[in-house]
């Protein structure tokens, strides 16, 4: 269990715009000869009373602090007391490991209080909770809070160690090095805005100075420090670890076994090759994402970006004659705001397409506007073979599986769409259709006719025939309640998952513990399924794949 050996507690005072004495009781055993100093700068909860009596009488000069926060933190006074000795430790190769907190702007003064003169301030004291080492005045330390911490990308043992202990870590401040220590400063980890939340200061050049490590709030400090002292620090500050060096020199390259060196080289080569491969894959992922950005845009965008994404999706599905109405109107010098977004002229009828991204579900005018634009086009072109199609990115701020994909359109809108011969589609369904098209090599003839339908358009290709739903599941099989058509051994079926379709052959059919050649409406038929395939769930829809 955690139990604090020594508590460093600020103490509460009555909140007022007045000064109170700063009372401290520091205890640092044999501090002048220490070599590694580890500090936790986040104070404990304030105690109700000062830790000791005031050090000198009221009439003598002493530290006082403004009580405007209701808390007096005596630690800066103690830190200043030890600063010279800590500077000496640092300048002679000592190591400081600091679990950080933000820099406090406390109002300290050197003052006295007497009956005759009252309270008189002699000077302002510019010290704070980072005043234990003078070199730390070269760091900007800004109070900040968060738990998103990203280790630096460099493959360095300390960074690898820090990564292992970042689970549950938080930070209280960010760091920026001033010019004086810029060359010595390196970042170990950043917050989500790229600001340093952990870092280290290397020894000054041509000096025998030490190291300073600034760390965030690590949950397992004991584990981190033990690993740090065992695996990291002996290499950085070998003079502090005579026992480690005493055992380690035999492993220097000069004395090491050739076979060990060979293996070490192999490790290094594997690490280099893996790092190179990871970089290549990261670049490939980036390129892949950029090339298929329109698929992401179908799910998140609105306005012109969504129109571009839908146009790319339709082109991929095989439409060849798509008119960008906005561009067409601009070219003709007309106002495009009151017209449809796209027109598709591949076949008769012409499709007039309106595309919208909305935070909620589409209102009636948004869902039915395509039909209004279709009427305008009918009037303009004096032709009757024109249909409207609305494509909506509904609840676009939600991940698609969290959206209402069952009733994205109100029943009244769907009823109107039937009467008006208007197609209604969500971009989520368009996304799923594009995925299925690419994954299963569907042909344009199998998907393009869908867009000419009325009412809600689902992403089910024309060569899929609904059979029924999954009724039961076993380890290597599932049953389907046949509701439509027939199913035969040798057919191929497709199972509709929440995102994708999964196609498989029907190798055998089992009905009431007997092999059969076909199944008809009303049968609950068992179908073998490879255990390694994605797991089906009860209620999934099953389709028979009609042959070409």
């Amino acid at each position, binding site marked *: *269990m*955690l*139990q*604090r*050996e*020594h*508590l*460093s*507690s*600020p103490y509460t005072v009555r909140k007022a715009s007045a000064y109170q004495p700063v009372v*401290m*009781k*520091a*205890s*640092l*055993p*044999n*501090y002048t*000869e*220490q*070599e*590694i*100093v*580890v*500090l*936790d*700068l*986040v*104070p*404990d*909860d*304030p105690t109700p009373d000062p*830790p000791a009596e005031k050090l000198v009488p009221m009439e003598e000069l002493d530290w006082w602090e403004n009580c405007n926060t209701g808390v007096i933190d*005596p*630690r800066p006074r*103690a*830190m200043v007391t030890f600063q010279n000795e800590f500077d000496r430790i640092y300048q002679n190769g000592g*190591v400081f490991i600091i*679990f950080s*907190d*933000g820099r406090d702007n406390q109002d300290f003064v050197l003052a006295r209080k007497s009956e005759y003169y009252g309270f008189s301030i002699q000077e302002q004291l510019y010290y704070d909770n980072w005043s*234990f080492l003078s070199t730390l005045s070269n760091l900007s330390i800004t109070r900040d*809070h968060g738990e998103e911490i990203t280790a630096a990308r460099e493959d360095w043992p300390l960074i690898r160690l820090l990564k292992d202990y970042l689970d549950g870590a938080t930070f*209280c401040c960010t760091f920026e090095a001033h010019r004086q220590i810029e060359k010595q400063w390196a970042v170990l980890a950043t917050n989500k805005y790229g600001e340093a939340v952990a870092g280290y200061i290397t020894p000054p050049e041509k000096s025998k100075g030490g190291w300073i490590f600034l760390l965030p709030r690590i949950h397992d*400090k*004991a*584990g981190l*420090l*033990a690993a740090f*002292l*065992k695996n990291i620090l002996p290499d950085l*500050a070998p003079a*502090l*670890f*005579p*026992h480690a060096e005493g055992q380690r020199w035999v492993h220097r390259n000069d004395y090491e076994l050739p076979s060990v060196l060979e293996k070490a080289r192999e490790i290094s080569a594997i690490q280099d090759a893996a790092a190179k491969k990871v970089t290549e894959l990261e670049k490939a992922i980036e390129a892949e994402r950029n090339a298929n950005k329109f698929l992401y845009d179908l799910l998140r965008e609105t306005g012109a970006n969504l129109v571009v994404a839908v146009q790319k999706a339709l082109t991929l599905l095989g439409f060849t004659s798509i008119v960008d109405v906005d561009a067409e109107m601009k070219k003709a010098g007309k106002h495009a705001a009151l017209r449809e977004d796209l027109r598709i002229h591949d076949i008769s009828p012409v499709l007039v397409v309106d595309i919208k991204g909305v935070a909620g579900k589409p209102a009636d005018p948004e869902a039915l506007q395509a039909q209004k634009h279709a009427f305008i086009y009918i009037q303009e072109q004096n032709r009757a073979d024109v249909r409207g199609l609305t494509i909506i990115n509904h609840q676009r701020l939600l991940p698609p599986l969290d959206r209402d994909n069952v009733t994205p359109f109100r029943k009244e809108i769907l009823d109107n769409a039937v009467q008006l011969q208007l197609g209604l589609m969500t971009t989520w369904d368009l996304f799923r259709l594009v995925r299925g098209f690419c994954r299963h090599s569907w042909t344009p003839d199998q998907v393009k006719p869908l867009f000419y339908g009325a009412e809600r358009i689902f992403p089910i290709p024309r060569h899929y025939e609904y059979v029924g739903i999954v009724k039961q599941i076993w380890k290597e099989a599932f049953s389907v309640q046949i509701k439509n058509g027939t199913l035969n051994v040798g057919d191929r079926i497709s199972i509709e998952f929440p995102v994708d379709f999964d196609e498989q052959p029907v190798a055998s059919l089992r009905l009431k513990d007997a092999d059969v050649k076909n199944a008809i409406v009303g049968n609950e038929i068992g179908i073998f399924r490879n255990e390694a395939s994605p797991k089906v769930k009860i209620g999934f829809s099953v389709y028979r794949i009609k042959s070409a």
Partner: protein
Amino acid sequence: MFKKSQPANEQSETRPETSAPVVKYQRPKILLIDLEADVKKALEMDGYNVAAGTFE
């Protein structure tokens, strides 16, 4: 920002004191300031020469 105080009932779960850990490595001399007691115990178990103190 302040650390959370330890709940009182956790204090009673302290294990009985065992024999003092043996310092295996006299150097480096390590000073822990205002760290939890478990940190000192963990480093002492590893044989380090650890002292604990406070800026209070």
